[in-house]
């Protein structure tokens, strides 16, 4: 399925790291976000419209928190986005990541975001796919939302923030994965999430740089959780895509994970194989950011140690910038591997074929 589209992969990828999305690529992470809650009003009940209006609740944080150099706010309309579209694109709207502890509100906003994404974007361009967002407060509400919209084939995965109150692999969350698999969805684990407690494993941050890089250690903690809690023994078809959290850290993490498991495996008897085997089979990582060594030979080492470029799937993370790691990476791999990173891995993950779904 990737033959024709893969031919201009390299150009597409260079394009992607600069101004644009790529022809012949599946872009696994393009952002959209409403400018204000009012944009979601058509999808919210009168009760929540009043709740938002009277309490003066505003969208905050994520969309506008970026310092100079990192990129503008995400597009809030199809017209704003459409100039950028080149190929099959997975939209991710993080607006619901930052909602409140009110579980009823979190569920209502998640539903409204999904409806808004569907009406504003998915119905208008057959190249578009999206992540389905859910309450991050109540697993039960997450399940209900997956059941409500998950059958729509344009939603390809359930999107969870990498910051969480409980690690996502925890047994309390398994119902989310059961619902996702029932609906044919995978799980995406995306950088960021709710503020209000330390966003890192070491305490509160004071700069964007710490927040940004803080996504990488907590993504590592989530990888550990999915494996140690036995998620993949229970859901053998589940794949987890880690978005915007890097990947060069993977190999050293797995070396230590395997070593420690060898010592204390009796604590987690449901983990039947070496942790690294589960991770290489079930996890994939997007290419933004590709934080890589300046030396090209070292890039080869990173790819070899992590299990090969098959672990990676292309994302532009439009409209955010992460430096110029991706062209250097694509430059070091074969044409077949490039096709995999740019198309094949995502196509397999999400069951996408070349022909857009009508």
């Amino acid at each position, binding site marked *: 399925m990737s033959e024709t589209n893969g031919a201009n992969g390299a150009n597409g990828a260079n394009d992607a790291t600069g101004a644009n999305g790529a022809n012949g690529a599946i872009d696994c992470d393009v952002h959209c976000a409403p400018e204000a809650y009012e944009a979601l009003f058509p999808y919210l009940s009168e009760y929540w419209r009043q709740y938002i209006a009277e309490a003066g609740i505003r969208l905050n944080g994520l969309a506008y928190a970026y310092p100079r*150099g990192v990129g503008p706010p995400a597009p809030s309309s199809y017209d704003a986005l459409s100039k950028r579209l080149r190929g099959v694109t997975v939209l991710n709207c993080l607006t619901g990541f930052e909602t409140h502890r009110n579980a009823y509100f979190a569920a209502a906003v998640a539903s409204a975001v999904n409806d808004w994404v569907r009406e504003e974007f998915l119905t208008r361009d057959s190249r578009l796919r999206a992540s389905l967002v859910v309450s991050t407060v109540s697993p039960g509400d997450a399940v209900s939302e997956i059941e409500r919209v998950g059958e729509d084939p344009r939603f390809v995965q359930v999107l969870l923030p990498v910051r969480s109150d409980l690690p996502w692999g925890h047994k309390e969350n398994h119902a989310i994965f059961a619902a996702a698999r029932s609906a044919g969805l995978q799980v995406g684990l995306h950088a960021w999430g709710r503020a209000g407690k330390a966003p890192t*494993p070491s305490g509160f941050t004071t700069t964007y*740089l710490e927040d940004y*890089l*803080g996504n990488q250690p907590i993504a590592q903690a989530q990888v550990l959780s999915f494996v140690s809690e036995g998620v993949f023994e229970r859901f053998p078809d589940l794949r987890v895509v880690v978005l915007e959290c890097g990947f060069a850290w993977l190999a050293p993490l797995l070396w*230590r994970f395997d070593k*420690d498991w060898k010592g204390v495996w009796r604590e987690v008897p449901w983990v039947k194989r070496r942790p690294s085997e589960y991770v290489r089979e079930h996890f994939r990582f997007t290419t933004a950011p590709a934080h890589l060594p300046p030396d090209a030979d070292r890039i080869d080492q990173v790819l070899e140690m992590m299990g090969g470029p098959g672990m990676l799937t292309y994302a532009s993370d439009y409209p955010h910038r992460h430096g110029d790691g991706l062209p250097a990476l694509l430059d070091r791999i074969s044409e077949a591997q490039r096709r995999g990173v740019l198309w094949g891995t995502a196509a397999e993950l999400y069951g996408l074929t070349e022909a857009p779904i009508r």
Partner: protein
Amino acid sequence: MRAQLLDEYDVDYAVLEVLSGQDCYDHPDFAAEWNSAVNEWQAQEWLSFDSRLRGTIAVAHEYPDLAVAEIERRSGDERFVAVLLPASAAEQLGSRKYWPIYEAAAAFGRPVAFHTGGYVDHRGAGYPSFYLDYHVGNGIVMQSQLTSMVAGGMFEAIPGLRVVLTECGVAWAAALLWSLDAAWELVRDDHPRLERRPSEYVRDHVWFTTQPIEEPDDPQHLIHAIEQARLGDRLLFATDYPHWDFDSPSQALPRAMGEPLRRAIRCENALALYGLPRERVVE
């Protein structure tokens, strides 16, 4: 310890790290008194009994003025070769709150050793269910702390500061350095105090102990990881005696490393960092 470790493995020097005063929620006066007692106990009961032993100055790190006083008190005893802090505290370790401790350590020529442990409730991903995740996670915590240390500017502000990241693994360093440098390029405006690339500060100020050394299937990969981060002269051998995941001085470092690197890690790097007399070390 003599029978099980020092004689058994022909150890030339062993640095003690006493963690019992590392909780951050003690009453300040108690914390100061306890840590002072820990240091006196090290001096009387350990350092005086065996010339191979060196101590680390335990301090009430959440109360920097009290910590500084303890560092001053012990500074004349050359057997104390570092100041000991936990790897996790009430605030991130790059916080200016702790800088007086780092300034005192630097002024008295002592590195600051951050040892895995301490406050455990900062959990951006939630609290892990199992010891397995928790223990692997110690390396993850240190990545986050090193980010805080660099971003907060303490290496720029305290040029003489040397830190030792202890019991957190080593192989993750390279990936973090690439991320730090890339992120710094993007948001330099946000960090006017950081005049150099983050990896340069780490290169000049940061050492790592080896245990628990990562064990890839292909030992060459560990060597790649060390070279990628230019850690050959920054790694200090550690056993973590007497814990279950003890790394053996005779077996933990893969032979594929070659003798010069193994020797640097086993002794030369620590001799240089701590200024230890080398007469004892058998060539």
